């Protein structure tokens, strides 16, 4: 059981505020993922929750108890570091039992906890080895095992998989998902750069940007209904295409004439007063479909990347506008240097004004 509440939390290094107005409610059993561009303060926020960084403003509570000034060991948290942070001079067994020894648990209790964790993580054959005699993936499992034995209320992970190779990353990601499944009452907070990790693991994703929270929601919410341009472009790969235009028709569906000449229809409703408003439409590359009729976008394909199940089309830039990317099913290298007309389902056309989605007005 662990409900975490952050209220107006902020972090300042001297004059510089790297985080401000962080409000977040985390319920027992959730797996929260922090994502955001490099340097946006993901690690800092995680370390504030861990107690490794001082909270310079606001309140942080776990189960209603204010934690701002509680030492890390008494917060009921465990942390898995990016670099594993194993004690190099201790065997796997000693690494895992260190916290329990410090807490003066009985030897029988320690052995039971370590053996159980080792079994879950398949580390039993390696218990008497030193960390340097383990592979990267095994080390990461020891780091996870070290947190499991303490039976914490909250698990914190700071980019735990980023030092592993691609195949191992997928395997360990699935292990973490299974681990979460096996411990439905533990709360986990997970920092990552990797979109796939975020989308597959998270019960909710927190997008951090510019020192604050940009949006909080389930992976699908963020994907289907981003609140702002930043989240729209951050989630999904390749990024959502943004094109400028002007509202020409309003009602339950909105008609937009684009500066590039195309016409777009969006399922987001607008009022009559919105007519003439400058907006940006957003279409994900995978939502584009080829058309013979009226097109949102028409352009010449500059480069194609056939990935097998899909082909990425990179269009020639038109003036100042950002490059448009489309993702079409199948293998389509013949489209290179061809002119292609694209449209999209109105339900998949996002509308933004001043960086905010019109869906949330």
């Amino acid at each position: 059981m662990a409900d975490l509440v952050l209220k107006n939390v902020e972090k300042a290094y001297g004059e510089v505020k790297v985080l401000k107005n962080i409000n977040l409610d985390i319920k027992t059993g959730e797996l929260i993922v922090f994502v955001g561009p490099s340097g946006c303060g993901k690690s800092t926020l995680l370390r504030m929750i861990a107690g490794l960084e001082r909270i310079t403003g606001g309140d942080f509570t776990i189960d209603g108890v204010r934690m701002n000034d509680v030492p890390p060991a008494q917060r009921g948290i465990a942390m898995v570091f990016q670099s594993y942070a194993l004690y190099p001079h201790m065997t796997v067994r000693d690494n895992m039992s260190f916290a329990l020894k410090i807490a003066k648990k009985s030897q029988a209790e320690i052995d039971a906890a370590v053996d159980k964790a080792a079994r879950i993580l398949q580390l039993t054959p390696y218990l008497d080895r030193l960390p340097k005699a383990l592979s990267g993936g095994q080390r990461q499992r020891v780091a996870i095992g070290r947190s499991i034995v303490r039976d914490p209320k909250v698990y914190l992970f700071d980019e735990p998989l980023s030092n592993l190779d691609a195949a191992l990353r997928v395997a360990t990601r699935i292990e973490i998902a299974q681990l979460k499944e096996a411990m439905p009452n533990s709360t986990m907070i997970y920092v990552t750069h990797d979109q796939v990790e975020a989308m597959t693991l998270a019960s909710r994703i927190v997008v951090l940007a510019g020192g604050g929270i940009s949006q909080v929601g389930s992976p699908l919410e963020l994907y289907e209904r981003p609140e702002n341009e930043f989240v729209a472009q951050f989630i999904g790969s390749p990024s959502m295409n943004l094109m400028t235009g002007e509202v020409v028709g309003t009602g339950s569906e909105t008609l937009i004439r684009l500066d590039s000449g195309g016409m777009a229809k969006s399922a987001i409703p607008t009022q009559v007063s919105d007519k003439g408003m400058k907006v940006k439409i957003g279409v994900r590359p995978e939502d584009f479909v080829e058309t013979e009729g009226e097109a949102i976008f028409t352009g010449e394909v500059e480069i194609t990347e056939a990935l097998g199940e899909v082909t990425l089309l990179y269009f020639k830039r038109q003036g100042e506008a950002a490059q448009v990317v489309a993702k079409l099913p199948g293998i389509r290298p013949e489209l290179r240097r061809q002119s292609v007309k694209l449209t999209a389902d109105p339900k998949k056309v996002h509308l933004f004004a001043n960086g905010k989605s019109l869906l949330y007005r």
Partner: protein
Amino acid sequence: MDQALMALLTIVIGVGGCVGYFWASNIVLDKVIFPARGLEAGRNISRANMVRPWLFLFPALAALGLYLAYPVFATAWLSLNRNEAGELVFVGFENYRQMFGEDKFWESLRNNMVWLIVVPAMSTAFGLLAAQLTDRIKWGNIAKSLIFMPMAISFVGASVIWKLIYDTREEGQAQIGLLNAIWLQFEGGIWSTVLVQDLARGGAWIKLFRLIGIAVGAGLIYVALSWALGAATAELPYGKPQFWLQIPFWNNFFLMAVLIWLQTGFAMVILSAALRGVPEDTIEAAIIDGANPFQIFFKVKVPQIMGTIVVVWTTITITVLKVFDIVRAMTGGQQETQVLANYMYDKLFVAVDWGVGSASAMIILLLVTPILVWNVWNARKEMR
């Protein structure tokens, strides 16, 4: 002035000579012996590259051979001979037998053993303490420089300084020796500290500070209760100036203090660098695991720098085994302070007994070698 100029000239010639040798020999190798020209250019280049390391090592190897290797064998030979009116007479192990029969030799050996335990242990411990305490504070670097500074003082210079600290004047005269000056403050026994005596004097603030000082002092004494009790109940000659360097057995420790003072800086610098190298996240992991600062220090940091501690320890051990200057300058090995190196000096240059002198030199070599080998082995392991 003349001597200073000579010294300067020597340095210039020495350094210039080295640079000149490497430069000139390199040119001769590349241009004259194996020129990178003509039909054999490629082969010449690779041959030159094979010769070059030996060329550059030659001065060091020659000097070491001349001044290190040869003397070892010569000394070994001398230790098996007796010098009779300028003639070497082979006597086998007679010199050793004679030496083992001397009390002074066994005293030196015993003292060396005590030095060997106390000085490296204390220097390393103080160095580690200083390295840890100065790690995170703003003026830590200043403190480190101050602790390191004695390293720049020669052993003899340090001995002179400490001789002044241990200096003794007649009773009744002003004591210029720091230790005696402090000692005389304990006139009525250990409890009548300067703090209590002067409590009546001074303004309110000074009194307050004294009270705090007494409180802190009392706390410390409480912690070291057994020690304090022993010191308090012992019949010590308080109030009389002491001839520190003439108190049998304990005077050894007053000499060791000098070397500890000198070596702590060395230990601190090396260990400080090692402590910095301990990964920050292992320390953070320990914090999260609930370790207190002492546990972090002893269970996480120290084990990770154990290799370096061993290297520092053995390096100081070797210095200690050769200790000579301090004993020579402060007591000359009198009053039971003799050590092997000074024993050797006495035999070799005072008594002019080459045989026994060389024999004692061989004993020192015998003691140093295993530690030296272990030290080099550890240092190489650290570097990997």
